[in-house]
């Protein structure tokens, strides 16, 4: 299993959607992993490490997104990113 891949569905919980702060957090987090993590909305995909690209998905609150990861540490990367979504990028409490 040198190059494993995995997938998961996540939902954007943040009131303001997948805006700058979540995208930044996500990119920062994703870059700690070697794996490539892609986030997909409808037919549009963005590399989680490419913040501008993630922003252009325009994912508002409630949007279902597909996460997929590929690479040596794919499983860890995927669960870390999915956790961020689950935690509402840590801004739910503030909102």
């Amino acid at each position, binding site marked *: 299993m040198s190059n494993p891949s995995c997938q998961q569905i996540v939902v954007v919980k943040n009131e303001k959607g997948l805006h700058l702060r979540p995208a930044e957090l996500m990119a920062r987090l994703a870059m700690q992993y070697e794996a490539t993590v892609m986030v997909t909305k409808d037919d549009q995909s963005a590399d989680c490490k490419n913040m501008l*690209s993630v922003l252009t998905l325009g994912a508002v609150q409630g949007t279902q997104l597909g996460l997929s990861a590929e690479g040596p540490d794919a499983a860890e990367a995927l669960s870390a990113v999915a956790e961020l979504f689950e935690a509402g990028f840590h801004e739910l409490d503030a909102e």
Partner: protein
Amino acid sequence: MLELQGIPVSPGVAIGPALVLDDEGYRIPRCLIPAADTSAEWGRLLSAFGKVAKQLEVNRKQTAERLGEEAGRIFSAQQQMLSDPGLLAELEGRVHEQHQSAAYAVSRVLHRYAEALGKLNSPFLAERAEDVLDIEKQLLHRLGAVTSDPLSNLDEPVILLARNLTPSETANLDRQFVRGFCTEIGGPGGHTAIVAKGLELPAVVGIGQFLDRIGQGSQVIVDGDRGCMIVDPDQATIDRYEERAQIRQKLTLRLAELRDLPAETVDGHRVTLSANIEFPHEVDACLQRGADGIGLYRTEFLYLSSDEEPSEEDHYQAYTEVIGALQGRPVVIRTLDLGADKMGHTSLTEPENNPFLGLRSIRLSLKNQDLFRTQIRAVLRAAVHGDVRMMFPLISTLQELRTARMLVNIVIDDLREEGAEFRSDIPIGMMVEVPAAVIMIDRFAEEVDFFSIGTNDLVQYTLAVDRSNESVAELYQSSDPAVLRLIQQTVDVSNKTNTPVGICGEMSSNPARVLLLLGLGVRSVSVPPLAIPRIKKVIRSVTIADCEEIACRVMQLESAREVDLYLLDRLGDLVPELVVQ
């Protein structure tokens, strides 16, 4: 070939290479580099990224110290954008594989992201588009690709393409090189449009977003007659436009022959045909076209085009130059019409929610009496050199008019005490630009020497339409029946009370609408210099009886569209020459 429709604000056609300004007004350079230089260029780009990142870190720290960590995060997000591997990979491809210059690559890529973000219909993300553009600007600055004033170093003819141009930016365009312009936003009655007409620059505004689709130096046709912009035209289109330019030139030559003939109808009614100007140097163009005088001298441009507040001497010199050039012909000097979208180097007002309904024009002058008195002094002193009349803008109440007149009397007393040379008997008039003035027009007639109907503001305030807002531009119609009734009422009362009345708004520069104005009893119009020959041609081609019949019919119509279609139709009957194209 790409054809885009906008709002025609200044007639004529211009063809030339595009000079694309972004919304900050800086130049987006487009150039390809030799393959051998791509590594060095990429190094330059990385170095610029490094410098901008450093600056962002400084910004972040300073902001965090002042406003807290949370506020500083906006810059860390920008830093993150900069270190975006996806972004860097894309730029590297453009430089290494497509041989684009660093600045051009940066500009194209970041503009595309900004555009994508702007389109997302999310206010939060639309703001991020601004962040992206901000980074772009900083990078371009570090790459040495932006100059603070790209328009000052022109050395070849260009068509200017910009998101928007302010009136003072437009006023300062170098006419030797700028042949025409197109903007993404703006409306038909905005001041930029008026200035463009004054400069005789073909212009189309309110086209909507287009800058991101046009490369620097692309061939562009500005069609200021039909309101369209054509990018990368094919040969057939270029031929067609060149042919039109020739027809237009021939018509211009024929109309120029009218120069020394009076603006008189076929049945012998003399009409005063004056010109609107902003700058003293425009007087020559007016006289060359046979203007009877200056019906509207917009003095605020004295204020807008200078870095310092104009002194009494600055006003005096400018007025004297105009008066001298007119050689006895009359000039109506309108006092400062600042405020709303026109503000000079120092704002005289606090930011307002509804500036067009706020402290502007005469209201601003009455609140800043030192400024106003300086101007009145200059007008009265300059008046010894010729036929000068003074006019106040945007008068809404009798009290405003009386206060303004009282200030004139105070200034007269001061000048008299000082023993200065001046005139105390110049005619004083007011602009009729708000419905309130029309409603009270009989009372105003008792207190002024003349009226001038400013149709641009009158349309704006009658229909409650901000004329520079393209979202409602279609409502902004000079021919709206409500506006026409106000004009009719003003002219009727003026004629009954023997108060001279003229029209100095854009409406009077439209040949078809002039038919109506003559029919309503208007015998004095003031138009941009460029429009003089056409308007004279209209006046010399019709009888007042024709026009009265037209007015009678028009006043029964119910919409601006019906009015304009009917007027155009009648213009075709009476002056077919002007309807060609």
